[in-house]
């Protein structure tokens, strides 16, 4: 399968307003529970004023790849991600290695609120940060898919180190494939991204690459705030599943 010469590196910046964040969805993800006071006004203010200039950005670099059983080789780096994830890349000859961040402002704001005793507000802003970064990544992935389609190619779901059997420590290999401080995201020795509300991972590319609408069954994460939503509401997969 010959590889198509796609534009190799893309970088995107987003304004929080263009991400169409659903405040009701944030309260739902936070599991606010019945009878709890509404934080809609608070979240509206955070989105439309306090975090209006959040440095939301992301991007990807496309590289040739070779997948075998439970691993993928890219530019001399071998990702041992386990069969559950590697199987999704069997029809792929290239990978988009991506990173995306909600920016440092969200984490700072969440910490500031919690330290001032506004515990629920701090918790909600933390979830808002997770939603921002996933929404921004949805946009990036959509752009990539559109570009691929023009070239007769398709994309897989996106996966990240830490999911299923893929050790989070392999993030070191992933970041070694990206330009230094790509999208202003850095990685610590213990594989923590900074800013903390950031995601990184890979998307498979190929003529026969397959996009799966539900992958939660592959994952054992009990803490994922998006878990199992897809099963109950398949129409809203884009809003619910972080594996899109």
């Amino acid at each position, binding site marked *: 399968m010959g590889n198509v010469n796609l534009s190799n590196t893309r970088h995107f910046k987003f304004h929080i307003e263009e991400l169409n964040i659903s405040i009701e969805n944030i309260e739902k993800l936070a599991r606010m529970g019945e*009878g709890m006071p509404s934080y809609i006004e608070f979240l509206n203010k955070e989105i439309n004023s306090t975090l209006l200039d959040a440095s939301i950005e992301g991007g990807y670099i496309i590289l040739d790849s070779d997948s075998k059983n439970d691993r993928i080789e890219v530019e001399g780096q071998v990702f041992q991600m386990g069969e559950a994830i590697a199987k999704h890349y069997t029809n792929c000859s290239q990978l988009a290695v991506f990173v995306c961040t909600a920016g440092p402002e969200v984490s700072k704001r969440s910490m500031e609120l919690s330290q001032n005793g506004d*515990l629920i507000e701090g*918790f909600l802003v933390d979830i808002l940060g997770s939603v921002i970064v996933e929404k921004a990544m949805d946009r990036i992935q959509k752009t990539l898919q559109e570009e691929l389609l023009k070239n007769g190619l398709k994309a897989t779901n996106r996966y990240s180190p830490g999911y299923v059997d893929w050790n989070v420590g392999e993030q070191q290999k992933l970041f070694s494939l990206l330009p230094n401080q790509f999208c202003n995201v850095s990685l610590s020795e213990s594989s923590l991204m900074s800013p903390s509300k950031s995601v990184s991972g890979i998307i498979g590319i190929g003529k026969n690459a397959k996009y799966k609408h539900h992958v939660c069954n592959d994952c054992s994460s009990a803490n994922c705030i998006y878990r199992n939503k897809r099963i109950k509401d398949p129409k809203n997969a884009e809003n619910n599943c972080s594996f899109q």
Partner: protein
Amino acid sequence: MNEILEQIAICVESGKINNASPFPPQMKGQDGADELTKQALDSGITAGEILQGGLMIGMEKVGVKFRENKVFVPQVLMSAKAMSAAMEHLKPFFASGEAERKGIFIIGTVEGDLHDIGKNLVAMMVEGNGYEVIDLGTDVKAEKFIEEAEKHPGSVIGLSALLTTTMNNMEKIVKAIKDNDASRKVCIGGAPVNDEFCQRIGADSYNPDPQGVVEFLNSQAS
């Protein structure tokens, strides 16, 4: 049980902070943990009695409900706020030694890890159950845990980690703590760890939820 202590316990359990607080809706316009604690002190009830007969009972109920998935993080945070409002009135009595806590718990997220929501929940729950909590924050090295523990003989240490990469730092930290003082009790928690890991690294207790930490501390205190 004294009626006002019972009311304080209900306020903590349901997250009723003060009179102005609109939550929970069925208690709107009623005094909350803040006012009731002050009233209890004014009526001659001791800080220790309020802690044991009010706050601890309320927080224990929240802890059990959280374990059973009957309430979630926001409700626990509401309870923690109600408890904090009450504790503001009690702190001077603890500081003067007039009232005593059950023990000291030193908690921190281990070196290399910056996640703190789980750690904070444990800290709040433990404090509400009658312990003094010293929160060392995130990215805490073994030396810092040891230094703090040496200042507080008999204290118990709690280690938190969220990543599989940082859970390995727990092993290093537990070893350093035990090398320094083999009798020091250490409990661990966080998404990637389990009982098997706890035993392997020589920690004394693994708990999947905050109430489990409280129960472990109670077993050590008794």
